[in-house]
C-alpha cells in the first residue's frame, strides 16, 4: 500500500472513531426523544415534553450547569478535580445579591463576585497544586466552607434582589425567544472550545493531564498550567452563580447541593476522563444535554407517586450504566488486541 493510501485510510479510521463517539451520544439523546414521543401517543402518559416552553426550559436549566461544566472540564483534563463548584455557585449568588442590596452598582457587584470566584480558585490551586494536597478532599472542603458562609450571610433563608434590573440580565429574550442566559452559555462554550483546541495553553492542559512528567520534561510550566485550570473553574462557577441568581432573582445557600457531583457525572458521561488528558468542551456539552433531557423527561412523566420518587434513582442507574457499558466496550477492545 502506498503512503497516500495509508494516509487516507488512517484519516478515515480516525475520523470515523470520533464520529462514532459522538454518534453514540446522539443515539442516546435520540432514544430519549423517541421514548418521549411514544409516551406522548399514550393518553395516560401524554405530557408537555414537546412544547416550546419545555425546550426553552431544558436549555435554560442546562445553561447554568453547562457554564459550570466548562470550568470543570478544563480541571479534569489537566488531571485535577474541583468539587467546590456547587458551594461556589450558591455563595456567589448570595454575594452578588447582597452586594447589590447594599448599594453596589450591578456591574461592579458582578465583577467583584467573579473576582472572588477566581480568588477561591487560586486558594484551591495553591493548596492542591503547590502544596500537593489531594484536590478531591481540598475542593470538597472548600465547597462546604462556601456553603456554610452563604448560610451565615443569609441566615439560611433565601435572599432576593431589590433591583428589578438584575433579573433582566439572564431573562431578557433576544431574537424573539433566546434568553441572554443561553447566549452567555454559548459564549462560555465557544471560548472553552477554542481555548482547549487552539491555544498553547489548551495543549498544555492536555499534556499536563496526559502525563505530568512528560509535560514537565518538555519545558511546560506544569504547576502554573494546572493552577490556572482551578482559577478558570472558580470563574465559571461564580459566573454560574451570578446567572442563577439573576434567573431566579434570588439566591440561597442550598442552591448548590449535589451540583458538583452532577456536573462531574455529566462531564464524565460526555467522555472526559477523570484520570486526565482526555476530553473536550463539546463532549461535556453532550453529556450535560443528555442528563438534562433525561431529568426533564422523568419530571414530565411524574404521573403517579411511584415514578416521581424513582426518577432520581433512575437517573443514577442510567449514569452508572453508561459508564459501565463504556468501560466494558473498551475492555473488550483491549482484549481483542
Amino acid at each position, binding site marked *: 500500500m502506498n503512503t497516500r493510501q495509508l494516509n487516507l485510510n488512517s484519516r478515515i479510521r480516525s475520523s470515523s472513531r470520533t464520529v462514532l463517539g459522538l454518534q453514540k451520544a446522539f443515539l442516546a439523546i435520540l432514544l430519549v426523544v423517541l421514548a418521549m414521543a411514544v409516551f406522548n401517543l399514550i393518553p395516560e402518559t401524554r405530557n408537555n415534553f414537546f412544547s416550546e416552553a419545555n425546550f426553552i426550559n431544558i436549555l435554560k436549566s442546562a445553561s447554568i450547569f453547562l457554564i459550570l461544566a466548562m470550568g470543570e472540564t478544563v480541571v479534569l483534563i489537566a488531571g485535577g478535580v474541583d468539587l467546590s463548584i456547587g458551594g461556589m455557585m450558591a455563595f456567589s449568588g448570595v454575594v452578588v445579591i447582597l452586594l447589590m442590596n447594599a448599594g453596589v452598582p450591578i456591574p461592579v457587584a458582578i465583577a467583584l463576585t467573579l473576582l472572588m470566584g477566581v480568588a477561591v480558585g487560586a486558594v484551591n490551586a495553591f493548596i492542591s497544586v503547590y502544596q500537593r494536597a489531594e484536590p478531591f478532599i481540598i475542593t470538597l472542603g472548600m465547597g462546604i466552607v462556601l456553603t456554610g458562609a452563604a448560610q451565615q450571610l443569609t441566615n439560611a433563608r433565601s435572599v432576593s434582589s431589590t433591583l428589578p434590573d438584575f433579573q433582566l440580565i439572564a431573562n431578557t429574550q433576544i431574537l424573539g425567544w433566546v434568553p441572554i442566559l443561553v447566549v452567555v452559555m454559548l459564549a462560555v462554550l465557544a471560548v472553552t472550545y477554542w481555548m482547549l483546541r*487552539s491555544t498553547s495553553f489548551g495543549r498544555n492542559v492536555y499534556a499536563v493531564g496526559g502525563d505530568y512528567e512528560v509535560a514537565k520534561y518538555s519545558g511546560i510550566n506544569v504547576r502554573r498550567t494546572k493552577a490556572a485550570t482551578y482559577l478558570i473553574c472558580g470563574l465559571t462557577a461564580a459566573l454560574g452563580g451570578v446567572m442563577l441568581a439573576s434567573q431566579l432573582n434570588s439566591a440561597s445557600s442550598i442552591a448548590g447541593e449535589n451540583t458538583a457531583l452532577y456536573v462531574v457525572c455529566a462531564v464524565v458521561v460526555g467522555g472526559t476522563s477523570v484520570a486526565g488528558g482526555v476530553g473536550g468542551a463539546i463532549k461535556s456539552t453532550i453529556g450535560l444535554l443528555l442528563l438534562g433531557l433525561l431529568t426533564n423527561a422523568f419530571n414530565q412523566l411524574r404521573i403517579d407517586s411511584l415514578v416521581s420518587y424513582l426518577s432520581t434513582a433512575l437517573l443514577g442507574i442510567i449514569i452508572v450504566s453508561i459508564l459501565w457499558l463504556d468501560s466494558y466496550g473498551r475492555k473488550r477492545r483491549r482484549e481483542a488486541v
Partner: protein
Amino acid sequence: MVVASAPEAPSAPEALLHVKDVSKAFPGVKALDRVTLDVRPGRVHGIVGENGAGKSTLMKILSGVYEKDSGEIVFEGNVIDKITPVQSMNMGLSIIYQELNLVNTMTVGENIFLGRFSESGGRAGVHAKAKALLKSIGSKVSTYRQVSELSVSDKQMVEIAKALSFDSKLIIMDEPSSSLTADEMEKLVQIIHDLKSKGIAIIYISHKLDEIFGFCDVVTVMRDGRVIATRDVSSITRNEMISMMVGRTIENEFPPRPDCAGETILEIKNINTRKLKDVKLTLRKGEILGLVGLVGSGRTELVRALFGADKVAKKSIYLEGRPVKISSPMDAIRLGLAMVPEDRKLQGLLLGFSVEQNISLAVLARLTEYGFINTKEEAAVGDRQIKALNVRTPSAKTKIRTLSGGNQQKAILGRWLEMSPKVLVLDEPTKGVDVGAKYEIYLLMKKIVEAGGAIILISSELPEVLNMSNRVNTICEGRINGEFDPVTASADEIMAKAFEFA
C-alpha cells in the same frame, strides 16, 4: 560460545529445580533463548549478567508472573506449566524482589502471613509464628511494628521469614544487596549460610562479582537472553566471568564514529545529592560522550539533577563558559539542553497525542501567536521531523500509541531535534528498538554532532558506547570513577571499572 553445562562433582545431589530450553519473546525482543539451568538443594546459585541479559525475565517466569513460550520447568519432580505467583509460593518457591513486596501500612506479623490470617491462628497465632520464624534467622524485629518503620535490611529479614513460612525449598533473591550497608550485608550472608545448611537452595542474582565469589557455590552467566556458561565458582576467574558477560561479537551494526569534537561546551564542576558525590563532567562541542554505569549507579540521578528535575543540594554548571542556573526542566530547555529519557512511555511519550503533537511539544511556544497555536507551522514541523527521521507512520495526525517502539523513539528524538539543542542527553536511546531503527538512530546521533551539537550517551549496551562515542566515562556508586578512550580501551576494562574492580 562456551558449552552450557559444566561437569558437576560426582557427589552433587539431584537437581531441585530443572529449567530446560525455556524461551520467552516480547514484541521486538527475544528475552530468553533456550535457557537451561539446574539448581541443587543446599547450594547458593549465583546468576550474573548485564542489564537486559534476561535474569529478571527468568525469575518472573519461575515465580509465575510471566508465562514461558516454550521449554520445560521441573520443580521437585513436578512439571510446572502454568502457575500463579501464589501457587509457586505454596509449592515452596519464593522470590524476594529488589523492590521488596511488603504492605507498608501493616505490621511485620501481618505481612508474613498476609492472606493466611485465619488459617494461621488469628492475631495471636500469626504473631507467635512470625516471632519464631524471625528468631530462626536471628532477627529481633518486633512482629507488632509497622513495616514502614523498618530499615531496608529488616524488611529483607521479613521477606525471608515470609519465604520460610511457606516452607520454601528455593528462595530467589533479586539483587538483595543493592540497598544494604556493609554491616547489613554481613548479616544477610550469615542468613544465607544458615539457609544453605538447612538444605534450602538459593538463587542469588547480582551485579557485584565480589558477592558471587564471596558466598556462591555455582554461577551462571547470562547474556542476551542466553545462558553463556554455568560453572563452579571455584573453577572460574573474575576476568573469565567478565568477558563472558560482555564479550559479544561486534558486527557492522554501527556507522563510522563521528570525529568533530571541538571546544568545551558544557562543564559540570560539581553536583552533589544524596546519591551523587562530587560529580564532575565536561562535554565538548561535536562530541559524543559515553556514560557507562549500572542501574542504580547514579547515572539517571545525574541526568535528572542536570535537568533540574530533582532538587539538588549543590550544583555548579557552566554552559559555553558561563555559569548557569537550572532549577527546573523549563530552565534547561530554555538554555538549549534536551533529554530523551530512558523510559519512553513514562517520561517521553504522550500516548493520547498525535505524532505531530508529540513532536511539537517542546517548541510549542515558538509556534504560538497571541496564545493560539499556528496549526500550519505545527504541521510543517511535524512533517519535517517525520521526513528527516524517517518515522514510519500512516500520517502526522496518527496517535503515537499505534507506532512501533523504534518509530516512537524517533518521533521523540524529533521533538528535541526541532529545538536544535546545544546539548542532547540520550538515556538508553536504543532500548527496545529493533536493529534497523537502531542504525538509523546511530546515524542521527552522528548528524547531530556533525551539525555542532553535543551528546551525552547513557547506555547499558557497551558495544553501542564503544562504537559511537569519542570518550567514555564510567559512573559507579554516584562517582565518576574512570575515563577511557573507546578506540583503545577494551570492553573488559570499562566494565571492570563500572563494576569497580580496579
